[in-house]
C-alpha cells in the first residue's frame, strides 16, 4: 500500500512508535533536557540517571512526536542503558551519519557496540526523507543536551 515507505516505516519502528519502551517520567533522575522540533511542534523530555563513573544507569523519555521520533527515542533508551556517557555520544555521531549519509560516505566509527549499531540501522531509511531526519535525531539531541547540562535544545538550530 505504501511500498515506497517500507524502508522508512520498518516493522520495528511501527512497533516502537506504537509501544514506546521506557516511556514516562521516572521518580528520580539526575540529568534532564527538553528537546523541541519546531518544524512539527514536537517536544520531548529525556531523563537520565548517570552514576559516578559516567555510566547511564537509567534513561526514560516522555513527550509527543511522530512515529519516527517516538521509535527513535524508544530505541535509544534501550540501546544506551548501561553504556558510558562517552559511548552514548559516539553512538550519536554514528547515528547522525546513518541518518544523513550514504554508506560509502560515512565517517569511521570504531569500537562501537555492534548490537547497538545494528539496532540503529532500522532508522537508516530516513536518509531518503531529509525532512524527517530531525524527527529521528530529536531524542538524541536531547540526550546529548541533558548530558551537557543544557536544559533545552531545538533541532531547528542544528544542521541535521
Amino acid at each position, binding site marked *: *500500500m*505504501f511500498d515506497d*515507505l517500507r524502508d522508512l*516505516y520498518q516493522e520495528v519502528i511501527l512497533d516502537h512508535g506504537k509501544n514506546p519502551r521506557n516511556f514516562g517520567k521516572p521518580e528520580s533522575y539526575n540529568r534532564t533536557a527538553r528537546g523541541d522540533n519546531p518544524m*512539527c*511542534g*514536537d517536544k520531548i523530555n529525556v531523563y537520565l540517571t548517570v552514576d559516578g563513573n559516567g555510566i547511564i544507569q537509567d534513561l526514560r523519555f516522555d513527550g509527543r512526536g511522530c512515529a*519516527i521520533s517516538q521509535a527513535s527515542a524508544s530505541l535509544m533508551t534501550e540501546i544506551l542503558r548501561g553504556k558510558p556517557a562517552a559511548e552514548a555520544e559516539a553512538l550519536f555521531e554514528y547515528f547522525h551519519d546513518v541518518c544523513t549519509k550514504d554508506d560509502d560516505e560515512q565517517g569511521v566509527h570504531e569500537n562501537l557496540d555492534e548490537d547497538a549499531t545494528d539496532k540503529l540501522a532500522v532508522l537508516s531509511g530516513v536518509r531518503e526523507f531529509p525532512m*524527517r531526519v530531525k524527527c529521528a535525531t530529536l531524542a538524541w539531541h536531547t540526550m546529548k543536551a541533558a548530558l551537557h547540562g543544557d536544559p533545552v535544545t531545538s533541532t531547528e538550530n542544528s544542521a541535521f
Partner: protein
Amino acid sequence: MSDTATLSPTSLGNAPYDVERVRQDFPILTRLVHKRKGRPGKPLVYLDNGASAQKPRQVIDAMSHLLENDYANVHRGVHFLSQRSTDLYEGTRDKVAAFLNAPSRENIVFTRNATEAFNLLAQSWGRRFLKAGDAVLISWMEHHANIVPWQLLRDQIGIEIKVVPVLDDGSLDMSAYAQLLTDNVKLVSITHASNVLGTVNPAKRIAQLAHAKGIPVAFDGSQAAVHQPVDVQAIDADFYVFTGHKLYGPTGIGVMYGKMEHLNAMPPWQGGGDMISTVSFAHTTYREAPYRFEAGTPAIVEGIGLGAAIDYVTALGMDAIHAHEQRLLAYATGRLSEIDGVRIIGTAPDKAAIISFTMDGIHPHDIGTLLDSRGVAVRVGRHCAEPLMDRFGVGATARASFAAYNTEAEVDALVDAVLATKSFFG
C-alpha cells in the same frame, strides 16, 4: 511577441466553471512526483495551496517575457526599456488597487510579503502612534506574521498585546472582541481568514466596532484575498495586507493597502534609493506615500508577475473561484467526516476552503509523509500559528487547502490516502 497583452486565462466566458481548462493553465499540475530509477512517479495532487499556490502559465510567461524583451531598472531611467519596465511595474499598482477596490493607486505599498507588511506597519505606524501602555488587539488565530512584529515592538517600546479568543468551532469570539476594545487599544490587527481553521472573520463588523471607538483596523488578507473577492472600502479597512505567492503570483512581492490619512502620516521605514526626494549628509527628505516605503530597487519582475496573476484571477472571477472552492470544501468535509478517528479543526460557517485535521493515534508528520508518498501534498505542522495549536490542544495538524485548479477527483485521492494511512498505522 512584443506585447504582454495576451495574459488572460483560457477564456471561460459565462460558461460554468471548467476546472479542466483552468488546470491546463498550470504546467506543474501534469507533473509526476517521486519519479526515480524505475518508479513511474505519482500524479501530483497539490493541496498545499495555503502555504503557496502554483502559478499559471500567464504569470510564468509574463516574467520570462519581461526578462527577454522589456527589462531594465525602473523609475529613474529615461531610456526605452526603463520606461517600459516602469510602466508595467507601476501598472500593477493600478491592478492591485482595482483588485482590492482601493480608492487610488497611491494606497498600495509593495512589500516582500505579508510578513514584511506587518513589520512595516509595526515599525512605521506603530513607532509613530503607539507608546508604552497602548495596546494592539490581535486574535488567537493569527499567523506568526501578525504576532511576532508586535512582540518585537513590545520589547522595543512597551506596548501591550491583547488577544481575542476563538470559539470551539473556530469562530472569533465577537462578544469578547467587543469587550476587549478598551480605551488603551490603539490598533486592531486581525486576520481576515485563518490559515489553519479557514474561518472568515466578519471584517466589516470588526471594523465598525473598532471605528466606533476611533480605533483603526488592519486586516491580514493573506488567506482571504485568495479565496473570495475583497473590497477594502466596503469593509472600511484602514490597512489590508496580502502576499503575492498565495494569489498564484510570484514570491518576493506582497502588498499593504493603507488609507491615505495613515500612509501620509507614517515616517519612512527603510532608507535608500527611490524613496528619497533629496539627500545631503545633513538632511534628507522623503517622497510621498506609497513610494516613501519602497526603498531600493523594487522586486520589478515579481511586481509585474503579480499584475499578471491579478489579471488571471480577475478573468476567472474571484466569485467563480470562491464558488468552485466551496463545492470542493463541502465535498471534502463530508467525505473526511465519515472517517472514524478523523477530527476536523475549524468548522465555522462560511469558512474558506481550508481543512485542518488530525487522526487518532497518528501524528500529522506521519500523515504528511504517507500522503506525500501517494503524490498528495498537504501541509503538516503548526502552520506558523503555534498559539492556535495550543488553543485546540494539538501539537500540529494536517491541512488540505484548495485552489482554483483543484478537483473532486483530487479530494477523492486525499480521502483514499487518509484511509490508507489509517489502516497502515491501524
